[in-house]
């Protein structure tokens, strides 16, 4: 108290520094304590959890999936504890919490630290106040952080020591078991159940040894062929192994000490080499396209003691799917000019290799048929993963095509399969035909339509329509003089075609005995008697006249001689002339062309089009009416079978013996064998049952049955060997269901069996009551 009384008055904050110093000391002690405790408790938790898990696994074997999860528990617990401690150290509580801790653990402070902490910022201004400050300063300086944060390490250190001790003792007593346990927990998926069973049998008195050495669960690894670009696949279990032909399949499993060797052979093929790697046997097999499966046999003292069948499913590599996108229809061109763009795409399940365009040019017909072909590479190919698309522009003028030539175009793609392929596919074929002069009405594209058509051939009505439509389309952008010139040009073409029709009318008239002298060709051209030139009709009609006159004179003479009257008297002649009677359709057509031509001359191409359309319709109708189909669509009367029966001459009949073809493979015997084996599983020793069932699986695969069904039978073999009869029967029943979905109907009677489980098997497959 004297110190307080005699302390000089202070204008500073006298308690802050000692309070901070003490709190810093407490904080450092707390941090040290937390860190040290974590460094002991963390490993203790890890060791204890690890030892506990191994012991539990030893007593009750844990499945690989469970071990895969649980193996992270010890490191999580240990590291979690240490991590939390580090978090607390890096994020300590506020100073006031440390002040409270110091007050709790240092009784001599008598709440001076908390009070000093609260009033650290105040300046003493009275005697009592100064006396308190002096006393507090003294107490704070006398106090230290010692004992504030005790370690309490005895329990965790004991747990850690015990765990390490137990593990060390186990390792010393059973070094093999410890190694296997370590491997089993470090690589849960790669551990063998049979090995752990042996460890348990050696370390635990209550666990009996395995009744028979059996194949453990298989591990497989599939490396697909390089062209597929697929990643390596790994797996385990008795499921069928699916792989592309050419894949490298590696099978491995454990090699129990009680075996002499493992033999492997391809079902329906040759033996396969087996090599030994430590405690494992390994089979490397290159998958052929017709792979069915592998049979593995464990041999001891020359006897097969276990057999397993691994079904192999060759995955199909589909040929590419090729589509020709453009042109999207067959084309008939007026002339072989212009550029034709061909576009195609191809897709493949493992990528497209080569991709090209194939062309065939055919020329002529019938006996004078020529044929050339070749390939073009696409000028631009875009590849996107497993698809490819390509463009090719054909300059038709450079191909030397002639009228009547036909180009067949199709895209071809080849995949990258260098094992069983390459698979090759083609697109649909597009035809590009160059129209003959008399086929211009079939032109269906303006591709290659020349700007200046040759004048020699008479253009078809369809060509004239195309030209008129183009003029109508272009007219708004053209000068009137240019429109007039083109319209007149088309009108001239229409006029030439009309003249051809007029000639046809005349020829028909001549063929049908109509006197050409009476034909007013001008009437035809005027479309109803408007007058006009007679030159064409007159010139062509001059020659047949004498013959026709002579003919008529002959007929008249004959009529007079017979007294039957003339032709005119016995036939129905109406008001129409002969010409009109024969050529009514052609006359109408002629008039339509005349109207179209007139409109074109008046520079009204749009008004001309309806006449042209109607003219084209009439032409097509007449073509259809007169078309002769030399082949195809020929109506053939049905034969009269009864009438024809037995009427043939039986010379040279070969009286050779003929046999019926080989019978289709029947599943009957296989199913019967399956039923027999299923019924006998419970009555035979597990090993014998397993061998029987595995032999059945191999037989099923050899017969080419469903691989999944064979896999089920193979799994049933393992279950039967392990003595799990019910499970084996259930698998066999499922296999039977896959092999013969409708086995229930019409099946053979139920085999007699006293085994209730076997009876249940037959009942469930539909053959029992």
């Amino acid at each position: 108290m004297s110190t307080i009384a005699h302390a000089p008055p202070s204008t500073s904050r006298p308690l802050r520094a000692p309070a901070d110093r003490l709190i810093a000391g407490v904080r450092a002690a707390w941090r040290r304590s937390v860190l040290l405790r974590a460094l002991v408790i963390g490993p203790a938790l890890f060791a204890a959890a690890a030892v506990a898990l191994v012991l539990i696994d030893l007593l009750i074997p844990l499945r690989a999936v469970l071990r895969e999860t649980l193996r992270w528990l010890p490191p999580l617990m240990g590291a979690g504890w240490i991590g939390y401690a580090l978090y607390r150290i890096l994020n300590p509580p506020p100073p006031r919490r440390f002040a409270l801790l110091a007050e709790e653990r240092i009784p001599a402070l008598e709440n001076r630290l908390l009070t000093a902490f609260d009033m650290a910022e105040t300046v003493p201004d009275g005697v009592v106040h100064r006396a308190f400050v002096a006393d507090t300063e003294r107490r704070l300086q006398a106090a230290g952080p010692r004992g504030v944060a005790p370690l309490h390490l005895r329990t965790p250190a004991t747990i850690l020591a015990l765990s390490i001790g137990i593990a060390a003792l186990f390792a010393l007593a059973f070094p093999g078991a410890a190694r296997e346990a370590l491997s089993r927990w470090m690589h849960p998926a790669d551990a063998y159940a049979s090995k752990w069973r042996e460890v348990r049998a050696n370390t635990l008195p209550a666990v009996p040894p395995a009744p028979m050495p059996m194949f453990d669960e298989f591990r497989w690894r599939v490396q697909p062929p390089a062209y597929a670009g697929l990643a390596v696949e790994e797996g385990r279990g008795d499921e069928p192994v699916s792989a592309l032909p050419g894949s490298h399949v590696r099978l491995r499993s454990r090699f129990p000490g009680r075996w002499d060797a493992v033999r492997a052979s391809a079902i329906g093929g040759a033996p396969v080499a087996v090599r030994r790697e430590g405690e494992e046997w390994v089979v490397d097999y290159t998958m052929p396209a017709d792979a069915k499966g592998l049979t593995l046999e464990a041999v001891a003292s020359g006897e097969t003691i276990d057999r397993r069948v691994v079904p192999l499913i060759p995955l199909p590599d589909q040929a590419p799917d090729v589509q020709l996108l453009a042109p999207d229809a067959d084309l008939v061109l007026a002339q072989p000019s212009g550029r034709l763009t061909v576009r195609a795409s191809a897709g493949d399940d493992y990528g497209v290799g080569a991709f090209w365009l194939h062309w065939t040019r055919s020329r002529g017909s019938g006996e004078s048929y020529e044929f050339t072909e070749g390939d073009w590479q696409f000028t631009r190919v875009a590849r996107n993963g497993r698809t490819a698309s390509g463009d090719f522009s054909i300059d038709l003028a450079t191909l030397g095509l002639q009228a009547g030539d036909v180009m067949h175009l199709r895209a071809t793609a080849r995949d990258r399969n260098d094992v069983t392929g390459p698979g090759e596919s083609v697109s649909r074929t597009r035809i590009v035909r160059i129209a003959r002069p008399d086929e211009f009405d079939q032109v269906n594209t303006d591709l290659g339509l020349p700007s200046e058509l040759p004048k020699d051939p008479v253009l078809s009505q369809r060509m004239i329509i195309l030209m008129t439509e183009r003029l109508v389309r272009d007219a708004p952008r053209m000068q009137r003089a240019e429109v007039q010139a083109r319209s007149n040009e088309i009108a001239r073409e229409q006029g030439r075609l009309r003249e051809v029709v007029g000639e046809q009318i005349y020829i028909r008239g001549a063929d049908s005995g109509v006197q050409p002298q009476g034909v007013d060709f001008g009437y035809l051209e005027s479309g109803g008697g408007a007058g006009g030139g007679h030159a064409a009709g007159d010139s062509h009609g001059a020659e047949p006249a004498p013959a026709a006159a002579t003919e008529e004179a002959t007929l008249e003479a004959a009529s007079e001689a017979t007294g039957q009257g003339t032709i005119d008297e016995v036939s129905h002649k109406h008001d129409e002339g002969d010409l009109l009677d024969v050529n009514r359709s052609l006359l109408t057509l002629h008039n339509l062309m005349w109207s179209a031509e007139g409109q074109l001359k008046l520079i009204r191409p749009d008004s001309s089009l309806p006449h042209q359309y109607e003219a084209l319709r009439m032409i097509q109708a007449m073509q259809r009416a007169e078309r002769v189909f030399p082949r195809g669509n020929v109506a053939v009367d049905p034969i009269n079978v009864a009438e024809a029966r037995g009427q043939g001459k039986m010379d040279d009949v070969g009286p050779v013996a003929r046999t019926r073809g080989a019978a289709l493979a029947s599943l009957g015997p296989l199913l019967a064998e399956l039923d027999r084996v299923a019924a006998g599983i419970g009555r035979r020793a597990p090993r014998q049952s397993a061998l029987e069932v595995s032999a059945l699986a191999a037989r099923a695969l050899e017969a080419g049955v469903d691989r999944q069904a064979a896999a089920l039978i193979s799994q049933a073999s393992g279950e039967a060997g392990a003595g799990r009869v019910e499970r084996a029967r259930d698998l066999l029943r499922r296999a039977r269901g896959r092999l013969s979905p409708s086995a229930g109907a019409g099946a053979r009677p139920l085999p007699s069996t006293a085994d209730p489980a076997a009876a249940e098997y037959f009942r469930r497959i539909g053959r029992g009551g």
Partner: protein
Amino acid sequence: MRTAASVRRAALAAALVALALAAPGVRSAPSVAAARGPAALPAQAAPAGRGPEAFTFATARYESGNWDSAPLVPTNILHSVAQYTAIPVASQGVLVDLSSPEIFRFPYLFLTGHLPLRFNPQENANLKAYVERGGLLHVEDHSHDVDGGFHKTAVAELRRIFGANALRPIPNTHELYRSFFLFPDGPPTTSHELNGWGDGLVHENLLGVEVNGRLGVLYSNKDYASEWNYHARNKRFQSVDNTRFGVNIVVYALTR
């Protein structure tokens, strides 16, 4: 009083009927089609009332080329089969799209044409399945020209479908040449060959693709399509019926 020839003919006919009905290929083909669901024939339905046992001459209609170049062949061959054998026959042939599952209803399929032959992907797949399931595809080069478009493209297509080395010459001792009539010298020549038409060659062998020991594809450059493309009633004017080899092909298709 029955003559020895008629007895022999009756016995042979009965044996053929039994073989045709028992042939696994013939019976299995309709079942495949049935499994895919019934579908009407696009061109003509199989004649009703005959039952599935009646042999029906099916002509394949493919997308490219002229599949209809020999329209009289089906009736002519049906007439011959009726004349010489006791095999039940339909009175008319049918057209089936090669891309349709309908082809699986018929154990024998006739295909011909002059123009380049290009199968589309569906036709490819159908044809391969058809042959593998026991059908017999009979391909006739109607242009009888080994330099012709049909021959070159058809051979290329068949090799693409069945393998590069699948199409091989059929030895003239093959069962095909004694399945009914005896042809000890192999395939009978045709007037088109002898007259020097087409390629001007007399082809000594037919070509074929064998699948599981039986002929799945029969390919001919001899142009039986032209040789047999006449109305059956005109057969009486021939001293030797030139369609007898067609009977052999049909009998082979039904019994192997």
